[in-house]
Structure formats: structure tokens, C-alpha cells
């Protein structure tokens, strides 16, 4: 008797509790997923997720791609460099991701030059923010790149954006904020400069001990890609604040590495690392603000005209 009651009770639980709850959660999660994709992820032209999708789908033969990390996103005003340029810079990414994007770019039927932003931590290992990659996991290259940081739920529709909704919300809201300027993928800080805050950053930078690490071996894919195409690739070092170099160890070796890249066929290195900019042109010691980006991009634009006069 007791067993029968227990069995019927458990069946009742299954029908009344578990199934409706699971159905409710699945339906709700699906709606959340759709809303976020349509209203937040894809309309944000400055979001990493959008840029990755664009890189895989955009075939405009005249486009000039600017690749790199947050330094690329925040330093290059595309309009001031070339009217067909688009800034594909994505925050907190490094050489591995640039390689994925560059490989994809090189496969396109284009002849336009490519800009790759290079910085002194280019060869660090950091996958970056999963918010950029999750909507693009259907691309095998992205899936392979993000594998190390991926959780099982990132592949489950409805659950895949767990922990990432805040990022999408932040990016979407950022596009409407007055604190920054956004143009063709670039995101430029436009908040009023705070001398006190910047002084604290300089103090902290003076305390840091950044070191150039020999990238031999780590750079094999990057070098292979640079050598694999006849398309011109311009490697640019965007401006740093002078304090960045104060304690930097291994600058000679880093410069030597840039010289080696410059010597490769079709590769041009433009070093604006020490380009003279006043303090109020910086967001922090390794990133310029909108003012700095405008000055730097105009200078790069001039150089661009000299390098590629026909285009």
C-alpha cells in the first residue's frame, strides 16, 4: 500500500512539478536567448561578437581590416585612416585571436592592405571574454580558439549566455553613452580627463615591471600567416604614454623583433609607440582617449597615403 502511494506520489511529482518547471524554464530561456541576440548582441557594431560575425560574413572587396586588441579598438579612428576601414579590435584578446581573424581575412578575395595593431604584450596567452565568442561558436575556428575557456552550457541554446548577459548589456548601453565615441567598430573614451586619476596610473605604471619575453615558437602561426600572402600587411605600434617605457625590460630585443617583421616581404612596420602626445590625450598609460586616437589616426592616415597612394 505504502509503495503504491509512494509510486503515485512520485508520478504526480513528475507530472505536476518537474515537467512544467522544466518546460517553463526552457521556454523562458529560449525567449531570453532570442531577445539578447536580436536586441543586444548583433545590433552592437562595436561589440566583439558582432565584429567576429562580420569578419566571417563581410565580403566587401574594398574593406580595410584593422585587427588587434583593446588598443586597436580604442586607438584607430577608421575614417581618419581610410574611408573603407573597419576596426575589428576586440578587448582582452591577444596574438592567438588576431591569428584567427587574420587567417580568415587572408582567405577573402581582397587585395586591400590589412592593419595589425602590435603591442608589447602581443604574445601573452589570454583567451579573452567569452561574450565575444559564444554567439559565434558555430564557426569551427572560433570554437577551437575558445575551447580552453568554454563550459558545456556555452553550447546549449537558452543557457549559453549564462554569466555573459551583463557584458552584452554593458556594450549595448555603452553605445548610447556619452562617455565614449563609437565609429566603424572603434570605441574611444571621451570622458573628461582626471589629472589626479591619471597621476595614480602613472605611479602604478612606474611600480610595474613589464618584460619583453622572447616569442620564439609562440609566434610560428603569426609568422606563417604574414609570409603566406601577397597582401600588404601594416603592423602598427599605437602610442603609449612615456611612463610605459620607464621600467620596460628588453626594449632592445622587442625593437629587434619589430625590425625582423619589417624585413618580411609585404610587411611594413610603423612604430608610433613613442609618438608625442600630451597626458590629456591618454585614457591610461597604454591606451589613448578619443583626442589621442584622433591625433594618432590622422598621423597614421598621412602615412597610409604615402604607403598606398593609389588606394
Amino acid at each position, binding site marked *: 500500500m505504502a509503495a503504491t502511494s509512494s509510486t503515485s506520489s512520485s508520478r504526480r*511529482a513528475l507530472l505536476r512539478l518537474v515537467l512544467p518547471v522544466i518546460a517553463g524554464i526552457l521556454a523562458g530561456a529560449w525567449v531570453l536567448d532570442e531577445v539578447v541576440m536580436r536586441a543586444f548582441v548583433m545590433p552592437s557594431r562595436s561589440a566583439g561578437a558582432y565584429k567576429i560575425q562580420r569578419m566571417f560574413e563581410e565580403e566587401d572587396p574594398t574593406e580595410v581590416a584593422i585587427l588587434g586588441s583593446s588598443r586597436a579598438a580604442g586607438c584607430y579612428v577608421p575614417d581618419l585612416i581610410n574611408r573603407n576601414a573597419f576596426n575589428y579590435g576586440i578587448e582582452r584578446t591577444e596574438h592567438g585571436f588576431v591569428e584567427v581573424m587574420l587567417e580568415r581575412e587572408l582567405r577573402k578575395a581582397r587585395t586591400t592592405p590589412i592593419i595589425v595593431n602590435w603591442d608589447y604584450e602581443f604574445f601573452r596567452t589570454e583567451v579573452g571574454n567569452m561574450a565575444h565568442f559564444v554567439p559565434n561558436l558555430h564557426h569551427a575556428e572560433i570554437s577551437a580558439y575558445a575551447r580552453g575557456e568554454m563550459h558545456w552550457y556555452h553550447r546549449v541554446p537558452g543557457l549559453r549566455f549564462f554569466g555573459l548577459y551583463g557584458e552584452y548589456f*554593458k556594450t549595448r548601453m555603452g553605445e548610447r553613452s556619452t562617455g565614449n565615441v563609437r565609429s566603424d567598430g572603434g570605441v574611444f573614451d571621451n570622458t573628461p580627463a582626471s589629472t589626479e586619476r591619471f597621476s595614480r596610473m602613472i605611479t602604478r605604471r612606474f611600480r610595474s615591471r613589464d618584460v619583453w619575453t622572447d616569442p620564439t615558437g609562440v609566434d610560428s602561426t603569426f609568422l606563417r600567416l604574414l609570409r603566406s600572402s601577397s597582401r600588404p600587411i601594416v603592423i602598427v605600434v599605437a602610442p603609449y604614454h612615456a611612463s610605459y617605457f620607464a621600467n620596460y625590460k628588453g626594449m632592445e630585443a622587442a625593437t629587434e623583433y619589430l625590425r625582423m617583421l619589417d624585413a618580411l616581404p609585404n610587411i611594413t612596420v610603423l612604430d608610433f609607440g613613442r609618438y608625442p602626445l600630451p597626458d590629456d590625450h591618454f585614457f591610461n598609460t597604454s591606451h589613448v582617449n578619443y583626442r589621442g586616437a584622433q591625433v594618432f589616426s590622422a598621423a597614421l592616415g598621412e602615412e597610409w597615403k604615402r604607403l598606398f597612394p593609389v588606394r
Partner: protein
Amino acid sequence: MLFNSSAFLVFFPLVCVAYYLLPHRFRWLLLLGASCYFYMAFVPVYILILAFTIAVDYVSGILIEGSSGERKRLFLLASIVANVSVLAVFKYWNFLNQNIGELFRSAGLGYGVPDLGILLPIGLSFHTFQSISYTVDVYRGDLKAERHAGIFALFVMFFPQLVAGPIERGRSMLHQFHETKRFRYDGVEWGLVKITYGFFKKVVVADQLAVYVDAVYGHAGTATSLSLILATVFFAVQIYCDFSGYSDIAVGTARVLGFDLMENFRRPYLSASISEFWSRWHISLSSWFRDYVYIPLGGNRVVRWRWYYNLLITFLISGLWHGANWTFIIWGLLHGLYFVFGMVLERPRAAVAKATGLHRIPRMQRVLNIAFTAFLVTIAWVFFRAENVQQAMSILQGMLRFDGNWTRAALAVEDSSLAPVTGLAVMALLAFSYRLPYDLRLRWPRTFIVITTLTIILLGRNGGDFIYFQF
């Protein structure tokens, strides 16, 4: 295994289904096996420490019950020494050794005793205290010694409360393992509501607040006063939601399986005094200290100075229980001092309330007392969260600089510009959840589970460990 891990999402339903399919006589075996698996997901070899504690206290219980007089006392002492020795070696050895080393060095003497290169076993303080309470209860005659070794092992190892409590008593748990549990729809439903609410507290509130707290405490030297104050308030709520969230999941998980665990938290930040706070915060630990330390010391049935001494000693040990660091000792002592001063100043406070007419508005008086208690508790949390005493002092000094402003840019530390806003939003959600019935007996439990789960998916973070695991 963490409750907030994907492994648990598979583990728990499987255990539940198997549990209700098995006849009662095999269920203890299933739960014991599941508990071993749950514990061994951390550092498998540490199961041997648990096995040692279980073996010692199982035998001690039987020996204590079967003896009397000095012999009985001796068995109890042996059991306590064995348990405390495990704690001493794994939790306190390095702390003690480092401090002795400092003393030697400050006296200009050499000291070459090395630290032990071992990790603290997860939940060691919890199951050790649970086990100690069992032998003491048997000694006092409050509990019969458990003869079934498997059931006793399960009492120490029961997976819902194995690694972070609640610290249960043999009197309330052992008999439950002997009882035949039938599937009860109401119990399962309430258990799932409790689990969902626990996950909400942990994954949405605690883990979101942790973003800002970690950023500010990680860069305390460059953070403004307002950032430090906001981060400390956030930490007060974070630790509450982290730990009470764990307890809710533990209570709910046990309830789904038909077991009743004690409530560990009763909205502690609504306490109007420190003594009330400790009757609402980590209840299983504070009642443990009351029953096994404070009352044996004489409690309040002694002369006044001795009473205060008993309180301070109890809080000092409570601080030390939390961790082998001076920060925890100071945290415990601070609460002891709050407690003592609260009693010393009881009459003057009543006189002030009368003189100002506040006693005629008891609700206002209570609100002020709640605010003041929350303030004292929050100040003490600085020591709990800081890496060391120097950092705690520099944070407290930083909070008193009163620099910075309430703009988002000024509050931001490193990459946390949205974190203060998100933190305030999830705290508002928590406050909103206080409108639910306190016991979570809801009219629409399924709707609650669905909406809360969607909130977790939308606002949750994959935040990692529970803070209290380290204890």
C-alpha cells in the same frame, strides 16, 4: 564537488532517483557512497582524514557509553584530543609555526622548523565540530551511542552538509537515518524552492557582488574612500548570501531526500543587537559554541567579570575556528567586545532613549538599533575579508579619508565600471525577495522556481567556490 557545478546538476538527480527506488535498508549505503564521491571530488586522499575522525568517534561513543567515572572522562578526552589534533595539524600548524618563527627572529634567535606543505581539507572544521558534539552528547547522556557504523559515518559525511554545515547534532540527525523515508511531494517541492532560492543568493547576489569586492580589495591602495566603503558593504551582503545560499541549498537538498536540517540563518542583518545577530547568523555554529564552550565555561551564571571573560574567550575561539590568521582572531574578538560593551552600555542606552523620547517610538528605536548593529558588523567584516591585519588597517584608514565621489567613473576600480551598479541592483533584488514568506512556503512554488531559475540564468555569474569552504 561544488553545489554550483555542472557535476552536481547530474549527481543530485541521479542520487534522488536511486534513493527513492532503493528499499530503505540499502539507502544508507547509497547516501554514504554518494557522500564519499561528493567529498572525493575535491582532494580524494583527504577522505582518509574523515575516515580517521569517524573511526575515532564511533569507537569513542561506544566506549564512553559503556564506561563511567574517570574512565568515561578519559575516553571523551581522547576523542576530543584526536579531533583537535587533526585540526591543529591541518589548519593551525603553519600559523603557529610562522608566529613562533617570528618570535624567535625578533629575539635574534634562529628558527628552522619548516611549514607543512599541505592543503586545508575542505570543510574540516565543520565535520570535526559535528563529530565532537556527538561524543560530548554521548558523554553527557543526551544521546545513545550509534552502533551502526555505516549510519554513524553517514551522520558525519552526509553530503548536503558535509563541507559547510549546518553543523548538525546527533540528537536531531541520527534517528532520521534510521527512519524510512517515503516520497513526499510537498517536501520535494519545498526542497526545490529552497535550493533555487539558495542558488539565487549565491550565483546572482554573492557572485555579482564579488566582482566589485575583489576589484577594490585587490587594489585597496589606489581605491577611493567611497569605493572602499561600498565594497565593504557589498562584502557584508556577499558573505551573507554566499554562506546562507549554501545553507539553503543544503537544507533544500536534504529535504528533497526527506531529511530535516536546521536553519542556519534568519535574516541576520535585521538584528537590533549583536546578541540578536548571533542568534540569527550561522546559528548551528553559535549554538555549538554556546553548548560546548560558553556554558561549560560557566556561561552567565558567574560573577560579572568572569561572564565577560567567558564571552570574550568564546568569540576568540570562534574567530580562530574561521581561520588560522590574526584577522579572524581580531574579527572574533571585535564581536566579543561588541557583545560585552552592548551589555555594559545597556542601561546608559536605555537612559538616552528615555531622555530623547525615542523609547516612545519603538519602531524607530529598532530601526536605529538595526542600522547601528549592521554598521558594527560591517566594520568587523573588513578584518574578515582583508589578507592581513596591515591591509585591514589601511582599508579602515582609507575609508576615513572621505575622498572620491559617487560617479560611476570614480567608483570604478580596474575593469569594474558597471560592478557598483550591478551590485546595487542585485542587492535590491535580494531586498525584494524578503517580501516572500520567511519560511518559503509559497502559493506558487513552480512559478517561483521558473522565475528564479531564469533570473539566475540572466543575472548569475560562474563565480566559483563558496567562501566558507576554506573553513
